[in-house]
């Protein structure tokens, strides 16, 4: 038995799958050189949307997948990020690069402030509370004159492209690379988080809060930590998207559709696994964008019908999401027998 223990201690804490690492490195390399192939503006836009929603879904995955709290109001943090950087630029000329980080701080503060009173809630009650908070934020911003009320803020156009103003009028490639950097950083962060002491403790809170507290884990504190981390990840996407479309308004930025779509994407791909959101996004965003391209406007709501259909199928046949088609040990942990 002692030799088994000695051998076990010699094992690396985390088993690395070289094939997976090679695959991911190849994917990253392909994404880096993709614009060099001269893709059309549509394909760059498609990839930008994939990167953006992948980060947003990862943010939702942190709160739902790691700590087990279902948020239906995550657009709040997207909106705060968008409004913070845009307002600081429009009113004070502060570069959006700084605004992004201030937006992250504001989002974290809001997450803590709304997280504390909701600590006693869990399950459906927590979800409903976040839904109502999301709607409340939208209503407040629709009436808040300082930030343009219902018409929102229009970000003044610069003459030509400007890194300071975060505006690129000639090509979508700079936006592509900026979103790509955030996408890669977010996934590295989520991967690191899931393997950290905080990640372990959040999963314990998710699986059984009573057992978690018997191991010295302050459940309330860790729920708030998860909420704040999730908000910090979500906020930059609001800032970047605002700079991408150069307008922020409450209907778009605090839309309940955002909160629901990130949920759908994560559920489709698989909650609780860092790759789940990416799989969900890689399927749903192309469907959405292609239906818009071929059917015009909002895509004739074909994407919404598809979302509903696929969600029903997943719930019935694959509740753990598409990620469950992959063997568990390949994706996260090595299981030895």
């Amino acid at each position: 038995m002692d030799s088994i223990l000695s051998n076990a201690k010699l094992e690396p804490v985390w088993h690395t799958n070289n094939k997976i690492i090679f695959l991911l490195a190849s994917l990253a390399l392909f994404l880096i050189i993709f614009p060099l192939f001269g893709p059309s503006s549509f394909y760059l836009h498609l990839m930008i949307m994939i990167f953006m929603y992948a980060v947003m879904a990862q943010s939702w995955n942190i709160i739902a997948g790691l700590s087990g709290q279902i948020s239906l109001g995550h657009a709040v943090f997207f909106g705060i990020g968008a409004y913070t950087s845009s307002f600081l630029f429009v009113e004070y000329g502060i570069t959006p690069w700084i605004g992004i980080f201030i937006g992250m701080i504001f989002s974290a503060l809001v997450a803590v402030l709304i997280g504390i009173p909701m600590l006693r809630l869990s399950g459906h009650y927590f979800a409903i509370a976040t839904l109502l908070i999301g709607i409340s934020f939208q209503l407040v911003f629709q009436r808040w004159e300082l930030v343009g009320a219902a018409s929102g803020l229009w970000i003044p156009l610069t003459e030509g492209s400007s890194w300071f103003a975060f505006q690129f009028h000639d090509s979508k490639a700079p936006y592509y690379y900026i979103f790509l950097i955030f996408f890669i950083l977010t996934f590295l962060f989520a991967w690191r988080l899931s393997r950290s002491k905080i990640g372990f403790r959040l999963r314990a809170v998710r699986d059984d809060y009573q057992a978690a507290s018997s191991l010295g884990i302050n459940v309330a504190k860790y729920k708030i930590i998860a909420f704040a981390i999730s908000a910090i990840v979500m906020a930059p996407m609001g800032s970047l998207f605002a700079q991408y479309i150069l307008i922020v308004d409450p209907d778009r930025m605090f839309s309940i559709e955002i909160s629901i779509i990130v949920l759908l994407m994560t559920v489709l791909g698989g909650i609780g696994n860092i790759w789940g959101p990416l799989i969900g996004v890689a399927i749903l965003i192309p469907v959405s964008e292609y239906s818009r391209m071929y059917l015009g406007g909002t895509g004739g709501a074909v994407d919404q019908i598809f979302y509903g259909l696929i969600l029903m199928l997943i719930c019935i046949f694959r509740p753990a999401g598409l990620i469950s088609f992959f063997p568990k040990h390949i994706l996260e942990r090595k299981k030895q027998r």
Partner: protein
Amino acid sequence: MKILSIENLSKSFGGIKANHDISFDINEGEILGIIGPNGAGKSTLFDLITGYTKADAGKIIFNNKNILGLRPDKISNLGIGRTFQKLKPFADQTLLENVMIGSFLKESNIKKARDKALEIIDFVDLIEKRHHFAGELSTGQRKRLELARAMAIEPKLLLMDEVTGGVDQKTVPGLVELIKKLKASGITIVTIEHNINIIMEISDNILALDQGQNIAFGKAKEIQNNQKVIDSYLGSVDVA
């Protein structure tokens, strides 16, 4: 030397007195067995000591500090570990990950926390199952997992709620040996048991509860011959 003193502890749920005026002491390194029929208030007593339920009155003195009213995580941090009657493994995580969550209380370094968890898993004889998901383990193995997880927080006092309950007869002797090993390692133990033979074998003292009240406290022989205990719990069972 006393490690835990319960003084006049009471808890009612509506009109039901789950625990009424309970008092007893435990010395360091001892095993205290708690017996009583279903509904006697045994698990409620554990919930009161570990902060999962708030007491109506009384004191819980652990290492000279009144811990009444503290949150469960604070109590764990002070050195009281527990297992649950209804098992609570983190089912989607491996045995090793389950125990590592406990060892993170005292060790932040992930490699050291992993190594400590491995030693504890070896102690409970599950080292070969370390990479199995908790949900795949047998009931007996999950009982060991819960013990390992509770040990990982390095408790001075360990509360075990029916460790041998719900497992097959072949598994019981191994669990009893494990309890003895735990005692030998210096941990003070309070255990709830329905198997009267086991409780008589392993306990230094026994507390008998009935309808929320302390009806007897003493050595195994004294409890065996106590008329109140015989009437309420032992009946005519021939104890070994």
